[in-house]
């Protein structure tokens, strides 16, 4: 899941896709009713463009079946495991710059320092990032990107979108993706080694092979399964995986044996505190991390003295 649902790294392809998308969305913005099969189905608020998204989802799926999957299989077959690991580490390390920038921008001082350390150590002792020595000495890898930073800053997530080739994101992920691309050195690799970027795409696809197979087997509706998983996974990343007292993991308690139907109220009642809890969490964390920054600056100045 991890790699599968990172906001995608964008290439120059992005601008074309983006313009196409704007044209398309402005064309269908008025057409909000969705018709599937015979009945019209209640549309989720987060996914007003489900009709368009489903088409893109099918497009991506077909593309993956005929292009992504065979190439990924070939890659997994011809490259030994240590090469695959090296390639993954290398690109993950390049992305490390973006990780620590975003950690700092979210006010996570201590984590930002760790992530900077990770990047420096892996870029030097780890042979340009081919080896992840930082994890061995206890500097864990974190997942940060600009879309998460925007969320922490209070930018609303916006509707869910499935883009051709790039896959699922929410509109917050568009500026997010652009920023991430700008902050990633792989974006600036010139013509002679553009091979590198292709390798990155192939490697990313190969890394999620198991996850995609799992979804294919387990999902009753792959589109909905992917959407729900994506949205929840991103939410979890933004909250840095923290649980709190309000987090019941969906105990709707909605079943009353005597026949009193309380389900709908309960669902609604549960959703509101949930969003509130996240907002509180974010605020609290901003305060916490501010304290951390101050603390880390203090320790740093102590050391230099």
């Amino acid at each position, binding site marked *: 899941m991890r790699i599968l649902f990172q906001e995608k790294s964008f290439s120059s392809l992005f601008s074309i896709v983006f313009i196409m998308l704007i044209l398309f969305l402005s064309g269908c913005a008025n057409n909000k009713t969705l018709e599937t099969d015979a009945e019209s189905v209640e549309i989720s608020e987060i996914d007003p463009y489900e009709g368009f998204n489903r088409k893109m989802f099918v497009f991506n799926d077909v593309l993956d079946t005929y292009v992504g999957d065979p190439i990924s299989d070939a890659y997994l077959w011809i490259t030994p495991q240590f090469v695959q690991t090296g390639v993954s580490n290398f690109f993950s390390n390049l992305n490390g710059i973006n990780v620590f920038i975003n950690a700092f921008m979210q006010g996570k001082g201590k984590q930002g320092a760790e992530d900077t*350390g990770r990047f420096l150590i892996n870029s*030097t002792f780890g042979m340009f990032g081919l080896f992840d020595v930082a994890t061995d000495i206890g500097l864990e890898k974190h997942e940060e990107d600009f879309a998460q930073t925007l969320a922490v800053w209070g930018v609303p997530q916006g509707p869910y979108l499935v883009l051709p080739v790039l896959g699922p994101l929410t509109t917050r992920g568009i500026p997010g993706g652009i920023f991430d691309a700008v902050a990633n050195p792989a974006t600036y690799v010139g013509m002679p080694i553009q091979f590198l970027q292709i390798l990155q795409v192939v490697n990313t696809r190969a890394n999620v092979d198991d996850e995609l197979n799992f979804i294919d087997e387990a999902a*009753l509706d792959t589109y*909905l399964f992917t959407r729900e998983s994506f949205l929840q996974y991103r939410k*979890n*990343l933004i909250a840095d995986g923290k649980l709190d007292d309000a987090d*019941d*993991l*969906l*105990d709707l308690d909605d079943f009353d044996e005597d026949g009193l139907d309380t389900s709908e109220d309960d669902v609604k009642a549960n959703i509101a505190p949930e969003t509130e809890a996240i907002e509180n969490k974010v605020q609290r964390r901003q305060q916490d991390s501010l304290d951390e920054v101050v603390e880390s600056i203090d320790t740093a100045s102590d050391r230099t003295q």
Partner: protein
Amino acid sequence: MKILSNKFYTCFLIFFLSFGNSIALAETKIKAESTASATEQISAPKKVVIDFQNALLDAMKQGESLSFQARSKQLEAAILKSHDVIKSLRTIVGSKQWKGFTEEQRAKLSKVFTKFIVSTYAANFNEFANESFVFVSEHTTKKGNVIIRSIFEIPESKRKKVTFDYALKKSADNWKIYNIAADGVSDLATRRSEYRRILAKEDGFNSLIAIISKKIDNYAK
């Protein structure tokens, strides 16, 4: 100038190295403390989760020698013992929908759903490569439910980690798992949107049964 910048760089690196190490040390200390307190007493919900995880690891270790059917049978016992499958199902479809079902439909859906859950486990936990579950925390929610967090560690070269949150509710006899979230993705929430969508269509009940049955057959292949 060059020497100077090198020197600066080394200082920088040393700073981060020592910084990183102190963090790592602090973390191992915390870990050691939590495991020390954990051995003192294992709470009832935690025991349910650990027993279930051990059953999963057992099934994985026998992966080569057991057939899919045999593994399903073995896991079914472990799942029924630790999970409140029917509560999960009711939450997924919603109480309104559940009450709309006839007694017969409920029984049929429960049976198919349970088989689906078991098959999913049997198909995915079928080999062992030194994976392990590491207990992280136990957390009581406002409603009095318990969430057990643990990390599924996949060693070898892949170095993957999945955080599993098990949500348990106390039922008449014991604590039972009603939901599991993997890296924050809640099983019930995902299924809820799928199942409710299918049920909302014409002849929804029968098509739901048909789709799930097809998935089960696919796993058994």
